[in-house]
């Protein structure tokens, strides 16, 4: 009997406490608190370090929610769907979610704000990225990170096999990969992403360099053209013949990067924005021996993608849009863009790219590769549609089929048919 009152009291206290905790979470009325959702990225780490400066300047309090890529899009899906107003600034992928968000009117129109602010100098942003953050002639986002595909390679292995320079063409890449693999048991000649959806973006540069694309000018699916079939067969074949043993068909960049940075592969094609993983001694064994080269040329030349990977947008349902813009203004402004670029995150401002100090800390060959890629680059790395996730799975199928030794050409025909149907559905 003696225990009862104690239990009763503690239950009551707990209930009261939890109710008190539940009561919170209003904070409306154009508040001084700004809610910013960012992805896990080097950019985010840098911006968080600089935040106190912004808070002091603006008198606002910034609450940062930081999430992994998949969780981020899951959360956007739930919250934006529900018309939530508890999101102010959103970091998003213009090529992945841009059209979908635009179509659903999730993103606020920033056209006036970008144009009216002369210090922000919106004209400084490269044209390609800006196009990607524009929906139906309205500016809905500000690009902050750009990416190009480059070739990561191992200088020591190439020298050992008697090569004096990284491959200039895709044919040379295949030959060098085969030779290095033969000379070094346990080391794969080549590694790259293999996951159906994940590989599409890195495969795109191969596709473009063979002279293909996902969709032609008139909006028809073109993943079964001769060029596309060659590209699928080449990419899949290279991984099948010279890739790691027991190759998984689930690899995204993190798994592929791990194989390369552990010294188990000679060549690796990947986004340049991830280069720090290969040059950071706590993560990589190949810090001393990694080299960077422009994307090798195919029949149509060297045509890597050159895309804005992340942008900042403002939630259209936010009750705090003016303050949200202040944050975008600062985080994508000239000063922060320069700081980011200097810290290894390539941005979208022309003025920063023109500034030699901004890339002084980069490996020299990476800067050269970047320059080449930016000049020749193609502005997309995946089909530009509303339902990107589905489209990636469709056009990615021939990649995994080629890797697992199935008939890539037949698979490309099937994929093209499915993709055409998908495009027709979406056009309705």
């Amino acid at each position, binding site marked *: *009997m003696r*225990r*009862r009152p104690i*239990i009763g009291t503690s*239950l009551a206290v*707990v*209930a009261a*406490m*939890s109710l008190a*905790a*539940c009561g*919170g*979470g*209003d*904070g*409306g009325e154009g508040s001084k608190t700004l809610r910013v*959702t960012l*992805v*896990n*990225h*080097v950019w985010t780490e840098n911006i968080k370090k600089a935040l106190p400066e912004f808070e002091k300047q603006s008198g606002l309090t910034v*609450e*940062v*929610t*930081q*999430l*992994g*890529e998949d*969780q981020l899009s*899951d*959360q956007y*899906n*739930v*919250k934006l*769907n*529900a*018309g*939530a*107003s*508890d999101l102010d600034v959103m970091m998003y992928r213009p090529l992945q979610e841009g059209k979908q968000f635009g179509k659903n009117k999730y993103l606020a129109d920033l056209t006036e704000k970008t144009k009216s602010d002369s210090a922000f100098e919106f004209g400084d942003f490269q044209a390609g990225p800006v196009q990607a953050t524009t929906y139906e002639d309205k500016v809905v986002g500000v690009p902050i990170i750009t990416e190009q595909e480059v070739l990561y390679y191992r200088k020591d292995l190439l020298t050992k096999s008697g090569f004096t320079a990284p491959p200039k063409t895709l044919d040379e890449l295949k030959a060098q990969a085969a030779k290095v693999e033969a000379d070094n048991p346990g080391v794969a000649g080549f590694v790259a992403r293999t996951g159906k959806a994940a590989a599409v973006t890195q495969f795109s540069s191969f596709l473009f360099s063979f002279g293909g694309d996902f969709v032609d000018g008139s909006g028809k699916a073109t993943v079964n053209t001769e060029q596309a079939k060659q590209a699928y067969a080449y990419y899949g074949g290279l991984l099948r013949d010279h890739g790691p043993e027991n190759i998984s068909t689930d690899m995204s960049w*993190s*798994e592929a*990067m*791990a194989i390369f940075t*552990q010294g188990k592969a000679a060549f690796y094609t990947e986004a340049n924005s991830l280069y720090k*993983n290969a040059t950071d001694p*706590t*993560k990589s*064994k190949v810090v001393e021996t990694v080299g960077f080269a422009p994307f090798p040329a195919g029949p149509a030349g060297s045509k890597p993608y050159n895309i804005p990977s992340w942008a900042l947008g403002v939630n259209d349902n936010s009750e705090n849009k003016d303050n949200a813009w202040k944050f975008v203004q600062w985080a994508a402004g000239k000063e922060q863009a320069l700081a980011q670029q200097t810290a290894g995150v390539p941005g979208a401002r022309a003025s920063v790219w023109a500034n030699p100090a901004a890339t002084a800390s980069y490996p020299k060959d990476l800067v050269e590769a970047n320059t080449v890629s930016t000049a020749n680059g193609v502005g997309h790395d995946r089909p530009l549609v509303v339902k990107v996730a589905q489209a990636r799975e469709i056009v990615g199928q021939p990649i995994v089929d080629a890797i697992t030794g199935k008939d890539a050409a037949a698979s490309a025909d099937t994929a093209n048919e499915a993709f055409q149907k998908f495009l027709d559905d979406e056009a309705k």
Partner: protein
Amino acid sequence: MTPSKPYRVFRTSALVLVVFTLMAPLLWMITASFKTNVDIYDTAKAFVFSPSLKNYETVLQQADYLQFIGNSLWVAFAATVLSLLLGVPAAYSMSRFTMKRSALVVLMARVIPGVSLLVPWYYVFSNLKLVGGFTVLILSHMFVSLPLIVYIMMGYFDGLPTELEEAALVDGLTHIGAFRRITLPLSVPGVATAGILSFIFSWNNFMFALVLSDSDTKTLPVAIFDFVGYASIDWGGLMAAATVVTLPIMLIALFVQKYVVSGLTAGATKG
């Protein structure tokens, strides 16, 4: 009737195998959490390596794990206590009045696929201006805890003799009084069992927290998913994080082993 010697030898070796299979992966996880990433990738250093606390430093400093531990504790605790408040009386009533259909309503919560609940919940709660705190998270975890508690406590109340309550009624107590003063105190072991289990399940819940938590309210299982984020596959950090998530709940389970076992097996022996 002691078992024969060959059987004893067989049984011992079989059990050693079972224990090894169950424990080895967990021990491997803990071992890996003390290795640098370079050592993890070096298969020659499977057992011989210089242990390092660096992964735990990464986990506890870079990501704000202490806050996530606090969040997990708070959500699991609040969801458990609130579910007990709702669930124990309900289970009592359902047991004493054999309300099978009503019980089924509550148990339905255990059956329904969680995916179908997320978007509708968020929609409703955001229109009620309840999002942006622990509310939705706690409510969603209660949804896991409540059926569990009702299920366990119904089994418990079924086994409690009614004579004492009847005696109390004769002594002039009301029905509710008898429940409060007689039945409830007798049920402390059952309540403890139900509470502990609900705490464990809530601590381990992933899907609801994956979508419904934000950076202030993120729980541990979601936080460990962050290591697979944009930076790199940091196996050492991941294993340290996995250890941080799992170790507290395993320790709790060991301390209250008896209750956990009786809760997991509740209802198992009712013909």
